[in-house]
């Protein structure tokens, strides 16, 4: 089938061009310009690793790394935990299975911009549902600006994504469906309670998929930009500033392209480190059998 060679190339080429346009060229520009002093309307000079050092001396950037790290840790633990518990409950396939799964998925399938807007309304100091509820339960004239008060801004932003672990739950449920029913029956015959079965039988078998879900959850924290832009823009001050928001501000408000791209390289590096670390923790890639 050697005459197929021409066709194989023609079939692959469009995808390779697409990849080059979106990823390859971008990565070359990103890494290349991180060693220059490129900003809008000026000529470009090579400056070595100056940007990399400068960034580490920028308090806003350090704050953005710290916030991103905290969010990665929270997402890898609490978010995953919520997803696992939800999956274990739904695995019993009760009457509410489909309804619960659909409802839980809603925050994950709507636009983050819209989700941000929903929460902005819910937490609105004047008419928001949260403050209304608190007033209803007795605190007269209660008014709290959840997103813009420095004491609550971080936790309020966190709440817009931390509980919504439907994707984690779906991954685990799919994996559970592939487990041989006999194993559960054997556990039942041995007199294990449902709780014991979950802890000692199901969860160990789910180790790999939980690891994969943790990678996805952790790396999703390197992408959070839209919801922060809609709700706080990283404020008040730099309270909720994360790395994507820092890059956006540096590139598009200050037009400091090379500095933004240096931050982009740091962002990719942080992603790689998280992936490797999580793989190590879960012992993935190694076969248990």
């Amino acid at each position: 089938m050697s005459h197929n060679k021409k066709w194989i190339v023609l079939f692959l080429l469009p995808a390779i061009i697409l990849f080059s346009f979106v990823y390859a060229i971008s990565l070359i520009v990103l890494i290349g310009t991180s060693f220059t002093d490129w900003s809008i309307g000026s000529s470009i000079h090579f400056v070595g690793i100056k940007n990399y050092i400068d960034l580490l001396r920028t308090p806003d950037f350090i704050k953005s790394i710290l916030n991103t790290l905290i969010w990665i840790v929270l997402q890898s633990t609490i978010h995953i935990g919520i997803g696992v518990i939800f999956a274990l409950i739904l695995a019993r396939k009760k009457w509410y299975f489909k309804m619960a799964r659909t409802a839980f998925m809603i925050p994950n399938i709507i636009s983050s911009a819209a989700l941000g807007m929903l929460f902005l309304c819910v937490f609105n100091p004047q008419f928001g549902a949260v403050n209304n509820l608190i007033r209803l339960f007795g605190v007269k004239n209660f008014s709290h600006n959840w997103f813009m008060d420095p004491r609550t801004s971080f936790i309020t932003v966190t709440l817009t994504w931390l509980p919504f672990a439907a994707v984690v739950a779906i991954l685990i449920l799919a994996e559970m469906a592939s487990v041989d029913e006999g194993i559960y029956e054997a556990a039942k015959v041995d007199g294990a309670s449902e709780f014991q079965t979950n802890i000692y039988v199901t969860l160990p078998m789910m180790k790999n998929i939980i690891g994969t879900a943790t990678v996805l959850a952790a790396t999703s924290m390197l992408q959070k930009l839209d919801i922060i832009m809609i709700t706080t823009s990283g404020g008040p001050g730099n309270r909720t500033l994360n790395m994507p928001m820092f890059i956006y501000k540096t590139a598009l408000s200050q037009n400091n392209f090379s500095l933004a791209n240096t931050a982009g390289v740091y962002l990719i590096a942080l992603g790689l480190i998280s992936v490797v670390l999580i793989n190590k923790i879960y012992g993935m890639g190694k076969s248990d059998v």
Partner: protein
Amino acid sequence: MKYLKYMNQLLIFIFLTLIIGISIGPFLWVFFSSFKGNSEILSSVSGFPNGLKLKNYITAFQMAPLARFYINSIIVAIGGTLLNLVLLSMAAYAMARFDFKGKNSLKLLLSMALLVPGAALLQPLYITVKTTGLYDSLFGLVIVYAGFGLPTTLYIMMSYFLTLPKELEESAYLDGASFVNTFVKIILPVAKPAFSTAGVLQFLLCWNEFQFALTLTTGNNNRTLPLALYYFKSSFASDYGAMFAATVLVTIPSIIVYIALQEHVVSGLAAGSVKG
């Protein structure tokens, strides 16, 4: 023992109620509030003492060019999904079915796309799109979105093609069918499940995307729906009802697509993540 069981049931009930409450509560609250007048929203009355009001929706369409944004979003979502599916089903077919030099390196290269967070690409893509004359055009967004879905679609397609028996094509070749003919007439018809699974995920990605729509367009002509909320946040600020209505209008299509094609979304998420 019995006591413990009830306790267990109670905890499950509380957990589920809480999780589902915060998942759909905000949307339902905004949805119902979108039929209220400004004063009713501010005084937080429950129910609809003055009847359902559609006025907010009319105001929302008047305050922001929502119709234009809707059309743009539909064009970008359909275009980005079609381009993505066509290009990647071709590449996935070639990679799943044939051996050629450099195949593994190509696979590795393409899967690198998974490791690059979108925010890192903000400025470089802005420059590429600008120099190629695609800035502030719907076509530019279509290409960028088709690229963002590359790893997921490629993976779903490849795994599906690998499950198809080779005999399927061999008999076609024996009958003298060409490479392209075999792909279009034999493979594509049986690959429908892969197309719908990858297609739904890609459609939602295009429909919901915000940050690149924001950086790669300017002016109202080529903006998509999610941007409406951002740009008109301040103009809506005086008219809460219209703000609620606009939020509902942006959210509803995703929810409808999801509920209609739920099983595909679920199987797509499960398939797309088992890469490692």
